[in-house]
């Protein structure tokens, strides 16, 4: 299961990343393996998405969300 497959309001726990470069940037922002992620909303045009992670909102593109593997 990838983060990009979640619908608005659904939650998941980060398992691993498929892209090294992206993982470094995501982890820096608090999006680490073991963290719970909730999809808050999707932009009006369908991309990017907004997620809630460790208490704040982060926006990222669907392509980037696809690199996050959920448990």
């Amino acid at each position, binding site marked *: 299961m990838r983060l990009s497959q979640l619908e608005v309001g659904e939650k998941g726990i980060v398992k691993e990343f498929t892209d090294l470069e992206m993982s470094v940037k995501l982890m820096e922002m608090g999006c680490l393996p073991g963290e719970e992620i909730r999809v808050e909303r999707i932009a009006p045009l369908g991309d*990017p998405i907004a997620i809630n992670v460790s208490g704040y909102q982060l926006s990222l593109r669907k392509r980037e969300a696809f690199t996050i593997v959920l448990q």
Partner: protein
Amino acid sequence: MKADIRVALVGNPNTGKSTLFNVLTGLNQKIGNFPGVTVDKKVGYCQLPDGRRAEIIDLPGTYSIYPKSQDESIVFSVLADKSNPHTPDLVVVILDASNLKRNLLLYLQVADLKIPVVIALNMMDLAKKADIDIDVDLFAKKLGVPVVPISARKVDGITPLKDAISFANKIALQEDSIDVASIAPQLVESIGRELNIDNPYLALQLAHQHETLTFLTPAQSERVEELEKEFSFNSQKAQGAETIARYSFINDLLYDTVKKPVTAHDETVSNKIDKVLTHKIFGFIIFFAVLMFMFQAIFSWSAFPMALIADGFVWIQDSLHHVLPSGPLTSLLVDGVIAGLSGVMVFIPQIAILFAFISILEDTGYMSRVTFMMDKLMRKVGLNGKSVVPLIGGFACAVPSIMSTRTIENWKDRMITILVTPLVTCSARLPVYTLLIALVVPNRNIWWVFNLQGLALTGMYIFSLISAIVVAWVFKVILKGKERGYFIMELPVYRMPRWNNVFYSMYERSKSFVFQAGKVIIAVSVILWVMASYGPGDRFEKIDQHFSAPQYTKTMKPDDLDRAIASAKLENSYAGVLGHVIEPVIRPLGFDWKIGIALITSFAAREVFVGTMATIYSVNGSAEKMESVYQKMHEAKNPKTGQPVFTLAVAFSLMMFYAFAMQCASTVAVVYRETKNWRWPAIQFAYMTVLAYVASFIAYVVLK
């Protein structure tokens, strides 16, 4: 100004760092540049309780000391470079008490550089409201540094923070957090030994960042590169390992010191606002309504102060002409320097209002939602959600807008944004358009409500946006990107704007605009003055002799005679000669040599057009006497055919030229400053000139 202690402010974006900076320093601040890079350096001064004076440096907000953009790279180089005159004696790390986990990552990295640190625990009021209970004493004990709870917005806890700054240790006493050296033991040891660095984290960071650091010699940097190869060091893997180790330390620390309520996920106010503001339909309607309101305000609110400034300069010029003896020096000062200055100053109200709006939109958190909504659309044409801000700003002035592209991390996205921003109809084009539209478009309403002239002007604005988007798409195809684009961005909680910050931003931006653009404009206007005031050989003497003949002095009124002489002199000045030289080139566009002079002078700044037209059609006065410029241009006839010069075709051809041509010395200068390479302003100048010529030609041929 001398300071006894140098303090750097470091923190995540949206933690109230700028608010704290403003509270500490007040108006006692200035924006400068870090040597060699184009990152704004905000420095201010603050009196400490013990009577010493502290210099406070506000470093750009960042999530870690691994830089993702040009702005962020300055943080590590300021903190790490011991030989740099800006190296701080003390770092104040600002943490958002309501979001400690992510904030602590940056703190731990800074602390490991072993510079004395004080923690300012900001937004304590918000944390209390959310029932987050922080054991500050235990927190401070575990980290080994002074921790001061504050609320910068409410100006709470500022005196204890100043006390902590003045009592801070000269040596770093913070506890170690993770075993940094274990990430790459041999590499850290070798770099430390060869470059004589005893701090393992500094050595590790040099391995990560040596390519961009200016304080390493090329030989040192090369040696680090060799060592990395020798120990097969992978920068990203090492950064990942470090981040995971730090977060595990942070989790342990927070488990002991912070109690959070375990409540279910309930709908926050911010979320409710987002449901409306980023709604599929309302989101865009609200965004366009905000934009419309902004333009209206920029034009209507600035009209009165702009008129005041313009009148003030006319008054100064008049009085100086009366007080000073007439001669070339007075003329240079009054008609060259002061006239040029007034051209800059008159834009201050518009720039101040634009920056007030941008700073309100950013402060409230709305700008990041606009970025969020527009990203997909902008990406299609090679831009980025973050390009929206400079493009909107371009309606006022391209100069500060190009400066604001620094937040775009991706190189290609940033270059394209810089290249197309000057196409957007800026406020300097407004006087040109209004004059030309008034000349050829009838002032009447169609369909009861729409004024034809207003429609023509609106059309020029929309046309400029469309052309910017088309050109961006073309550059997307042409330019080769070096790096992958990504869009990982925090969406901060909605907040009321902090009026102090809005005011400071207005003040600082206007000030730096006046000084940066002002220098260029004054220089160019002096050159223009020389070109328009002197001519080759003895042409000017001949004109004086010619008009001193009795048939002129006897029959003409002195005023008319002066105008006739001025007009003849302009035609024979260097500028006039140049106008005649380029006439064959611009004739296909419908322009004569007089318009040619205006085109040349407008390359300094577009708004010079009206003034030049006024001089050429020998009207005394400047842009303020629009009526009379209008009259003269309206009555201007082609000497050969007897037809009016400014027909619909000529006026629209001219507007097309002004829409596309890079007629702004300040923009050229700022593009060079931002890209550090003459190639970019050259490419921009070339493509815009070609577009201008082609568009003008088409407009003239179609409408003729």
